[in-house]
């Protein structure tokens, strides 16, 4: 893809985002953002029942053209390929930069990888929640554990 075509592709994804919106029955909803420039992404992930695999991904967000295009492109890929959790966690930031176009994305790596980082966070949340449920914890207990760990992180 030449530079001009790539830019048109990114702008199109930004202006007509795919899979944008909430996912009411998501297994995880994780916010992410770049406070410095105001990019915000919330990723919704629904896992296939009984499998460590993505069933559906949607996102909400505001921000720069690149961050929103990246979220749309990533969501489209996830909904097409339904990768395993391991594949998502192994999906490198470098690979994301390559998909978006190194000439553009390397100048704004945080914008380019915000969606991927947030998606990985959501997948980890699904994995952890499943482990906690398998260990006998209720959903209410899991929420309380997450609140406590969130306080611990921000205070560290």
């Amino acid at each position: 893809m030449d530079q001009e075509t790539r830019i048109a592709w990114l702008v199109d994804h930004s202006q007509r985002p795919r899979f944008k919106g909430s996912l009411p029955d998501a297994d995880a909803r994780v916010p992410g953002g770049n406070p410095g420039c105001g990019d915000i992404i919330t990723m919704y992930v629904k896992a296939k029942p009984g499998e460590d695999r993505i069933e559906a991904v949607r996102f909400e967000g505001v921000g720069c053209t690149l961050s929103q295009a990246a979220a749309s492109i990533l969501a489209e890929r996830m909904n097409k390929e339904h990768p395993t959790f391991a594949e998502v966690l192994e999906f490198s930031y470098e690979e994301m930069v390559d998909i978006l176009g190194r000439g553009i994305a390397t100048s704004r790596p945080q914008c380019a990888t915000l969606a991927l980082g947030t998606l990985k966070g959501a997948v980890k949340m699904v994995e952890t929640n499943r482990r906690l449920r398998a260990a006998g914890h209720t959903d209410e207990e899991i929420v309380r554990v997450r609140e406590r760990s969130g306080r611990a992180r921000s205070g560290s």
Partner: protein
Amino acid sequence: MAASVAPVADIADRGYAHPEVLVSTQWVADHLKDPNVRLVESDEDVLLYETGHIPGAVKIDWVADLNDPLTRDYIDAGRFQRLLRSKGISENTTVVLYGDKNNWWATYAFWVFKLFDVKNVRLLDGGRLRWAEEGRELVTAVPRYPEGNITISGRDDRSSRAFRDQVLEHVNHGKRLVDVRSPEEYRGERLHMPEYPNEGALRGGHVPGARSIPWGRAVNPETHTFRPASELRTIYEAENGLHRTDDVIVYCRIGERSSHTWFALTYLLGFEEVRNYDGSWTEWGNLVRAPVEKP
């Protein structure tokens, strides 16, 4: 032009020390065909120019074009000269910068242009947003200009740029420092939001003695243009005790928001000695044993 926007007083009537560095949207509209004027868009959003820009404008990106790709510094004079010439900028060209985010990045570019002593550079008051809200034309066609002939002889970091040792000297001598970040960042309450990535600082707070004057106060939020000098004097001088003869260092997170305040103090209020600390909090907040203050 059709849209109805909040009116704004003429630049010449706002009492600025150097009103010649600002141009209005109407001035730009009147000079769209002027071969001696080169419009330059500089944005936070790396693809915003591609979605539409003022007719005839070229793009300069603060990362890809102005930053050295290896060292945390700006490009050297040779590369800057090549960059400007590639944009068709000559000795007699009037460069007009504008951009998104209330001209954050345009003032940052303006500051870099001044490090290289480019004489004839101006800023579009109100930036891209004002132009768009006035319903003025944006186009996607990328212009091509013949190679320019501007000569850049060197970069002088002494008068407008501050480094960490100079900031420490400022602290030790009780000189004027201005932190233009958000009050939450100044108070050290926010390095990053919960669940959000840390943008590179290990400590929160501010440089001891710095006054908190968020950059956005210099802008009228309704018009996106700079406030008149009388209002700026109230903010910087009456409320915060700055004086135009003070030796002032401004900083933010990486030097972009503070370039906006550097511009306002230097050109709109005529402060004589203002330097921008572009290392800013991403350097200071990681510096071993750098003094940090938290209220």
